[in-house]
């Protein structure tokens, strides 16, 4: 039963290889698994791996920590996101404008649904979002009940980095406040979902009625008590 439990963020992310596609939960700083991201950066700095990572997140990092620090370290080849601009997104902006990082821009609701679709085993779906815009260029369209829709495909990932609030050894998770956002969807979609939780316990630690992500979706869980909060770090000007 404790097979899923790892004892450090470093151990939890140890299997992520070069070239991996990694979904990272969070919306801005809310629900962002900072300790898991930093463990990945630590390994890259020590060993040069994992490099050439494709990151899927709503944003493209902020300040000099988290995803922004990954980008600055030079380990990210591509971002798939809806909103790469933020108050302090220099790390991404500089690489993007220099042509050193690829961007796939996806409308936010389409991003969420493409992730959900992979988790649910649905390879494609139709959405009204982006019809008639440049983001629908080259995509099949179809009319349903007199309205036009765009076909979008599922979004796959090798790994997901998730931030939960409570967790148990089965991998069951709850989330804190608006920190839920993309986290439950990414847990479903990735081949291997790795969750950091503030409070890890034995099976039964979470009331079954309160479980948001059932443990079946979660491969690895690690306890990070009193986790760092991205927005707080950015405001303090912390550089990782």
């Amino acid at each position: 039963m404790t097979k899923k439990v790892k004892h450090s963020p470093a151990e939890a992310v140890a299997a992520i290889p070069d070239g991996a596609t990694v979904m990272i939960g969070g919306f801005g700083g809310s629900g962002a698994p900072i300790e898991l991201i930093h463990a990945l950066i630590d390994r890259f700095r020590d060993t040069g791996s994992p490099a050439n990572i494709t990151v899927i997140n709503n944003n493209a990092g902020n300040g000099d920590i988290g995803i922004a620090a990954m980008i600055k370290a030079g380990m990210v080849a591509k971002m798939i996101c809806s909103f790469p601009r933020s108050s302090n997104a220099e790390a991404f902006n500089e690489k993007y404008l220099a042509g050193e990082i690829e961007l796939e821009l996806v409308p936010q609701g389409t991003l969420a649904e493409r992730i959900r679709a992979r988790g649910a085993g649905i390879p494609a779906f139709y959405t009204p979002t982006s019809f008639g815009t440049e983001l629908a260029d080259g995509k099949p369209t179809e009319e349903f009940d007199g309205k036009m829709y765009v076909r979008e495909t599922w979004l796959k990932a090798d790994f997901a980095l998730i931030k939960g609030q409570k967790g148990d050894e089965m991998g069951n998770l709850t989330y804190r406040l608006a920190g839920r956002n993309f986290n439950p969807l990414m847990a479903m979609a990735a081949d291997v979902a790795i969750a950091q939780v503030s409070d890890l316990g034995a099976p039964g630690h979470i009331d079954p009625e309160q479980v948001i992500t059932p443990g079946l979706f979660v491969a690895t869980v690690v306890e990070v008590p009193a986790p760092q909060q991205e927005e707080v770090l950015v405001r303090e000007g912390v550089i990782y």
Partner: protein
Amino acid sequence: MTDFNPMEVKLSNAQIAWRAAQDIEDGSYVNLGIGFPEMVAKFQPEGRQITYHTENGVLGFGKAPEPGEEDWDLINAGKKAITLSPGASFFHHADSFAMVRGGHLDLAVLGAYQVAQNGDLANWRVGSKGVPAVGGAMDLVHGAKRVAVVTDHVTKKGEPKLVETCAFPLTGVGCVTRIYTSLAVIDIEDGKFVLREKLPNISMEELQSVTGATLHTAGDVLDLIVPEDL
């Protein structure tokens, strides 16, 4: 032509937001776009229960917290700290956008670079330079029963923002139903701008001269009256 200057005779953003707020019905579920549209919440009429949705998975948020009281896990789509109102709920992003696309919201209020007479909206980028960012804009224009725009009537250079055809990249096709501008309230019906209200101190001709497509009327054009002290 008269010496009418739409940069001088116009409503403030607060007055535009106030006017938009008057049309939000009791019991509505509403998404307010990031920036100027967020101001609409400040003018929610007394006695109406309005529940605000934000794309990152919160229904029923209230005012911003006091400085120092922020919990940065509790933010809105603009990444600003929020507080919860009684009866609030959290949900993940797929459910949040199901609320949007699924037609479950009563109203979305958005900003605009340009609105075309057929309801096309351009509000996400003005050209091909820089870093593109779309966020939830393309989703929000679909699904809400009413999609309203709050905007200045003209650009800072004095060019019309209400046009025959959008020159900027589109956010959505034929999606806008009503526009609250600094000079007028205009509905979009059957591919036409239909004028409902205008400032009482400007003429039809003056309003038309700063509008990029023909203004139609259907019945009376009412005076656009707002509180002066906003």
